[in-house]
């Protein structure tokens, strides 16, 4: 099981993996400053279907140490490209149900364009680069590690 690493700091570029449900309002409160005119936040929510199959629940697993290093690299790229003044991102691990927040990304900047673009850049990079894995459990009882299709994938 992944180590819990959810000590929360309100500093720019904060990333955490959390076994506990994500407190969206607390994370939102860490964004923005007197110099920021824009805050954009994104929540990834567990939905009840994927690629034509009915999803009952999800299980997320992470390698926290590697994820931390990769998230910091992503944040540095985002800061350089979009001039973000604050970034907060938390990803859940463990068993999640439909409707749960799986990931939160929030950024703030002086103007809205950079916040929208920077938030989009970060969530896309997180999905493609962080060592985090997702196992779907379907209504018919079968399970599958997403993106790991292989011979022995079905139970």
């Amino acid at each position, binding site marked *: 099981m992944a180590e819990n690493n959810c000590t929360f700091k309100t500093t720019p570029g904060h990333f955490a993996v959390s076994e506990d449900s994500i407190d969206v309002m607390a994370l939102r409160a860490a964004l923005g400053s007197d110099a920021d005119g824009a805050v954009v936040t994104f929540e990834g929510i567990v939905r009840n279907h994927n690629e034509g199959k009915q999803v009952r629940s999800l299980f997320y697993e*992470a*390698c926290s140490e590697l994820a931390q290093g990769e998230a910091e690299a992503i944040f540095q790229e985002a800061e350089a490209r979009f001039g973000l003044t604050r970034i907060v991102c938390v990803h859940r691990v463990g068993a999640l149900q439909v409707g749960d927040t799986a990931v939160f990304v929030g950024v703030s900047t002086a103007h809205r364009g950079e916040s929208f673009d920077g938030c989009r850049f970060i969530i896309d990079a*997180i999905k493609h680069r*962080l060592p985090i894995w997702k*196992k779907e459990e379907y209504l018919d009882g079968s399970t599958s590690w997403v*993106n*790991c299709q292989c011979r022995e994938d079905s139970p």
Partner: protein
Amino acid sequence: MSAQSKTITVTIRYFALLREETGKACETLTLEQGTLADLYKHLQERYKLSLPIEAIRAAVNNRFCSWQTDLGDGAEIVFVPPVAGG
């Protein structure tokens, strides 16, 4: 120089599909010195892993590394199956 091949001890952490196929989250192995690719091929055979090496990335001591990286004694290795965060 010794003609004998040197042995090293490494720790490997398994996640997601690899954890399920090996049946363990972590193990320490003593083996002949070689590259990351040599180690993955060895494990693939031993555990009948379904993911080809092309689908995997590897990290040593918390840094992503190329498959040709020579492993040192005490290395901590993570094999990263295809990711799916978000």
